[in-house]
């Protein structure tokens, strides 16, 4: 292992510099609610990238409520939780609401373990939020 000018590392650099998305994320804004649907494993590899994608949108100033859809997330660790909690702080600072929907049992277990569910309510799906 000599020098670090790697193929994949270059890709990561590009991501940082040019905003190419490493994380597979879908953004959908319905009036003042932003829905962020992430696919894959929420760990340190994608944390920075996911954070900046969401923040860029939030900084536009048109988002009041944030829904994180974790339906297609198969793994989350504390780096992933950090991104979620960070967005929560941002949302409450502007008096917005935040929700998490669709967490699989293993992901929900970690959300509950960390106590995040006491700050950000968990729902099965987006429909369930509209019905409340």
């Amino acid at each position, binding site marked *: *292992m000599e020098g670090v000018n790697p193929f994949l590392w270059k890709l990561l650099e590009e991501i940082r510099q040019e905003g190419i998305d490493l994380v597979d994320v879908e953004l959908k804004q319905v009036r003042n609610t932003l829905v962020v649907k992430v696919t894959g494993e929420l*760990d340190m*590899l994608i944390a920075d990238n996911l954070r900046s994608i969401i923040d860029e949108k939030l900084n536009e100033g048109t988002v009041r409520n944030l829904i994180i859809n974790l339906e297609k997330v198969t*793994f989350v*660790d*504390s780096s992933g939780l950090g991104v979620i909690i960070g967005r929560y702080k941002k949302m409450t600072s502007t008096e917005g609401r935040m929700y998490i929907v669709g967490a699989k049992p293993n992901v929900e277990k970690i959300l509950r*373990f960390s106590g995040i569910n006491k700050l950000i309510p968990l729902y099965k799906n987006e429909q369930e939020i509209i019905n409340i």
Partner: protein
Amino acid sequence: MNVTNFVSFEFPSLPQNVSFARSSVGAFVAQLECTLDDIEEIKLVVSEAVSNCIIHGYENDTKGKVIIMVSIYDNNSLEIVIDDHGKGIEDIEQALEPTYSSDSNRMGLGFTLMNSFMDELEVTSIPGEGTRVRLSRSFSLANREAYA
């Protein structure tokens, strides 16, 4: 208590190796008599420990080395040792405190997760030389006996 199987890995401190490390260790420990949930928990603690080596130990420098050693014992237990040769930890007691993090963007939840999902967590470190995290857990033999 004898070691029945063993694997050691060594790889550079690149962020994409966190996912590789947890899935490889997961594949290896699948030979224990344990549930899929147990394996998910093992993958989580490996993810935490390896992320710590990269983020804290090497401060995101990708030229560091991470070493993982996994041992499986004949009483259906396992030990995972994760080493880095990074900057080390000055105050281990403080590092182990729930919610303590030296990085304001992080949650300080890594060691708490390792502590909760494993039976034992032991951290040793020499500032300037590196850190060793030793994790162990044993699984009941109930299932195994039910099969026999």
